[in-house]
């Protein structure tokens, strides 16, 4: 089979991540595959057809019910930079340290973007049920501006391996189901942050790949502008981390890219979730 033969599997979303990347690279330069792919539009539409009138009515109702909150959410969501790419382009890939800090600052000071969308939301909109992460906020700038400040940390703050995986899973479950838990996209690959003031922080999901000698690290960014508190390190790829930390006075949870083993001050902040 040649790569042209993968069009239908790609349309059906049956390729693994590597195959998909290869095929998308091919698709960009192959008019015949582009044309064939367009031919599967009706198949995908048909598979999304309602099974009967009852399902159709229920889904139309659900769509109407969710419309207002969706509008709120997109108003609070910063769009990626322009440039064609396929559906699931990874957008949170860490870049070089200097570039990344600059990028965060640039985005933080950009006058338009998601805020422009917010103005066009009708004023009849209900209040959002929960706060959305606002990336590029001044808190993130605070975290970034603290780079390079030396910080003495007690070794005890650095959480090592939590031990066996069933304990980890139980901890995640405890945080996920906590009464005050807030679930937010971490802004890093597919990973999700579960934040509970009573139970702690759990980060779960697929994160973009890192170089061999690099790791992610979690931080609490204090609201009073003091230095970020270092948390546990987290592997790239499919990863999970739990941090039973005190969130009193915290403004955000940040994630940075660090040399293996972690650091006491953040090297390269790649995302933050405002609390």
């Amino acid at each position, binding site marked *: 089979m040649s790569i042209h033969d993968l069009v239908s599997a790609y349309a059906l979303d049956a390729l693994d991540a590597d195959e998909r990347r290869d095929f998308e690279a091919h698709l960009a330069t192959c008019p015949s595959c582009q044309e064939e792919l367009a031919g599967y539009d009706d198949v995908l539409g048909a598979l999304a057809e309602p099974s009967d009138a009852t399902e159709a009515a229920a889904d139309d109702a659900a769509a109407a019910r969710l419309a207002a909150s969706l509008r709120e959410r997109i108003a609070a969501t910063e769009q990626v930079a322009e440039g064609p790419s396929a559906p699931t382009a990874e*957008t949170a890939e860490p870049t070089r340290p200097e570039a990344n800090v600059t990028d965060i600052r640039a985005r933080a000071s950009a006058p338009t973007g998601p805020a422009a969308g917010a103005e066009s939301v009708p004023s009849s909109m209900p209040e959002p049920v929960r706060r959305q992460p606002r990336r590029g906020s001044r808190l993130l700038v605070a975290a970034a501006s603290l780079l390079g400040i030396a910080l003495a940390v007690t070794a005890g703050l650095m959480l090592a391996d939590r031990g066996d995986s069933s304990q980890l899973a139980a901890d995640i479950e405890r945080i996920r189901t906590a009464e005050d838990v807030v679930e937010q996209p971490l802004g890093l690959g597919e990973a999700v942050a579960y934040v509970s003031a009573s139970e702690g922080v759990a980060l779960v999901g697929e994160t973009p790949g890192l170089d061999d000698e690099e790791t992610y690290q979690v931080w609490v960014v204090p609201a009073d502008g003091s230095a970020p508190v270092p948390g546990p390190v987290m592997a790239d790829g499919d990863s999970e981390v739990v941090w039973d930390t005190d969130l009193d006075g915290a403004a955000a949870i940040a994630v940075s890219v660090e040399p293996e083993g972690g650091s006491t001050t953040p090297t390269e902040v790649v995302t933050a979730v405002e609390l």
Partner: protein
Amino acid sequence: MVTAVAVEQWGGPVPRRHLRAVSNETAPPEAASPTLEELLLACGRGSSEAFDALYAELAAQVIRVARRVVHDPDMAEDVAQEALVEAWRTSPKYDPARGSARAWVLTIAHRRAIDRVRREQRQRDQVEAEAATAEREAAPGAQDTVVEVDFRRWQSARVREALDVLSDLQREAIELAYYGGRTQAEIAEQLGVPLGTTKTRIRDGMTRLREALKEVPR
């Protein structure tokens, strides 16, 4: 086998676009309203009005795609919302040459749904790991039983009719990929057939499905 909705007579919701065309002769020509591609491109330029219009056309389909993979209705709504936010977020990167707007958005929903199922599964697996070990030792093989799901309950009459044109093996491969969220390699492993065979089933099955759908009236 679950056949909860099979007893219902297919009346079929008429697609809205069709209804409009039939019921209103004086309606402006279809070309006057923007295509989904134009709407998605406008989303990419930050137009929330375009998103509203796109949402009106696609949200119910997005919810259904999510439900066909995650099954749980509440979780499906949650996944659908994530997918639509993701579509908005990444719309500046949308390129019409690389697929229709609908396929692009529905594929995001499909992937999001698969991610959610896998995450839930992983967490369940870990929580239950210890207990399961004990059980497995007591009753070996019991955990390997595949729960059979009748995918027809998720299909419109038109899709059922079109799928009937496929061989059983082609249909099985396509259903495992779409509803089961499996890759070609995973399907090959699950069915114990060579990867090349699975690829051929999907390719030929998709071609036949595409052609069959052209023959089945909407």
